[in-house]
């Protein structure tokens, strides 16, 4: 019996990282993606390489995952990141009050956070609000989500993975481990046989799981972002306050991305941004860097963002964390789903899921993605 065959559904950051991890451990991998690479959640994200500081106080587990992955990504894709650190800035007494808990939580989560004089922060980032009271430097960074995925997929491809973009999953016979697909370019349909099926379809994970009779509890929420046509800062600028709407400005090439907000969405494929969200983004971002009001708006976008429903919370509580589901549990053995999480932690998420997949397939090979250098995103993946 040759190497086991794993089909990965979804070529976002999760699917790409899983393909890379499994391709290094022996199984044959086929990635099936309805659209282009990163045409789902990953493509639209705010491109922030999280240091985890934002979640240190209220979601320490996510915070630890972020800082660990942040440091690993710097080793495996050094040229794929803008590494200028980030700043948490305080503008009001209320923000200052949040500082002690913030610094202490960062320390607990192993996130290097260093306070710098307000004057120094204004020197480093001249467009910051002059009324700045305090600033804390943390190892945030910036990546390009599309190229992040291309790097993982190009490396997976070189290690034997097949990447089928514009190929839609139209049916799953999980007992016989068969995935029926339609090549959207030729219109032809076909069946792919596998030993295991991985569902990394992000916001559509619920739909894909249902095809196999499994259930994934995902709250299809969305986030709005605005891009202005000027690079306002070299570092990621965060508001020193509990996570709220529009409190991050991320530089990206010659533009800046202001965001984000969140609301629950009925139809993932047709998201309209509630008007007040954009005002909210400009209101908060405008406090951080007043100039955003004068910069030309370059793009307004809404990203479907799957927030994991905490099991048993009846859909009320969600977490930024991620979860692996083995659907053997709900009558769909052969399907494994990975949901939630962030692009920053894609490698770590993939490691956990690949461990589960390898265990199920009896492949005992250690994960190598912590040290394996990724290929350039330009290397190509034959798709």
């Amino acid at each position, binding site marked *: 019996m040759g190497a086991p065959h794993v089909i990965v559904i979804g070529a976002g950051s999760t699917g790409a990282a899983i393909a890379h991890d499994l391709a290094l451990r022996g199984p044959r991998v086929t990635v099936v993606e309805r659209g282009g690479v990163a*045409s789902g959640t990953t493509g639209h994200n705010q491109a922030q390489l999280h240091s985890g500081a934002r979640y240190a106080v209220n979601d320490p587990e996510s915070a630890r995952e972020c800082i660990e992955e942040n440091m690993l990504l710097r080793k495996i894709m050094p040229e794929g990141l803008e590494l200028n650190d980030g700043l948490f800035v305080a503008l009001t007494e209320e923000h200052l009050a949040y500082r002690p808990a913030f610094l202490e939580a960062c320390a607990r989560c192993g996130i290097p956070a260093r306070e710098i004089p307000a004057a*120094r922060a204004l020197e480093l980032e001249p467009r910051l609000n002059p009324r700045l009271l305090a600033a804390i430097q943390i190892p945030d960074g910036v990546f390009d989500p599309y190229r992040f995925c291309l790097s993982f997929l190009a490396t997976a491809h070189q290690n034997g993975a097949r990447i089928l973009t514009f190929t839609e999953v139209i049916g799953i016979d999980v007992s016989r481990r068969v995935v029926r697909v339609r090549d*959207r370019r030729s219109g032809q349909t076909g069946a792919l046989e596998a030993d295991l099926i991985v569902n990394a379809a992000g916001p559509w994970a619920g739909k894909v799981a249902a095809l196999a009779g499994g259930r994934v509890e995902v709250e299809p929420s969305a986030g709005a972002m605005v891009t202005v046509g000027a690079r306002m800062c070299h570092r990621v600028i965060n508001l020193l306050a509990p996570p709220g709407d529009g409190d991050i400005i991320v530089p990206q*090439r010659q*533009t800046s991305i202001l965001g984000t907000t969140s609301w629950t969405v009925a139809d993932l494929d047709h998201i309209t941004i509630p008007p007040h969200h954009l005002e909210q983004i400009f209101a908060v971002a405008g406090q951080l860097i007043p100039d955003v009001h004068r910069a030309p708006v370059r793009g307004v976008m809404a990203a479907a963002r799957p927030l994991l429903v905490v099991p048993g919370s009846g859909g009320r509580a969600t977490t930024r964390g991620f979860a692996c589901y083995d659907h053997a549990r709900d009558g769909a053995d052969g399907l494994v789903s990975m949901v939630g999480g962030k692009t920053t932690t894609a490698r770590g998420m993939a490691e956990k899921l690949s461990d589960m997949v390898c265990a199920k397939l009896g492949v005992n090979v250690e994960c190598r993605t912590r040290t394996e250098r990724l290929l350039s995103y330009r290397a190509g993946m034959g798709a």
Partner: protein
Amino acid sequence: MNLTFTLRIRRPQGWADFTVTVPDDAYVLDALEAAERHDPTLLFRHACHHASCGSCGLRVNGRERLGCVTRVAEVASRGRVLKLEPLRNLPRLGDLLVDHQPLFSRIDAVDLPPIRAAASEAVAGPQPTRFENCIECGLCVSACPVAGSDSSYWGPAALAAAARVAAEPRGRDVASVLKLVDDEHGLWRCHGVFECTEVCPADVDPAGLIMGLRQRLLEGERQ
């Protein structure tokens, strides 16, 4: 306030019309996604939606643009028909979908570092870096008449990348990169049409970089 108009999309078997209704501040990409809801077989590429990934290039009424940052209101002609065609000079995979790999491979061949110095003027603290201006979207390659007829031509994007390596090597071997492009199918095939510079959404000015590199080769290292 909404806009209702016709998207006339070039498909392999000919033109197909879609009547779509989108908010008046919608982008061409939003209109395409509206059309895709009517006909899921419609093929086009998109990812970031804010002109930094470079995947959604296409021709709108004959001119190369990025779908994600081109507002419908600005380009919909009076007759409310928006003609969408795929980029030229890149292998067509279907409808508005092209394969960017030939472009990626050429830029990879000249080994352009993805990262550059962020600020040209002096800044406090460590020198910040950022991604290159060029988002490798292929608009320039589509607009270039030479790239259209000579497939062995390096093309504006790759030649601009070579010029960028020469300007900011970041450890790359500049001499070997210049040797690659300093020939008839590289720097010296460009006819100074400047259409690449006209359509570039990221102010890379490929034609200017090509001519600048010609000057450097002709006049030697004076800067």
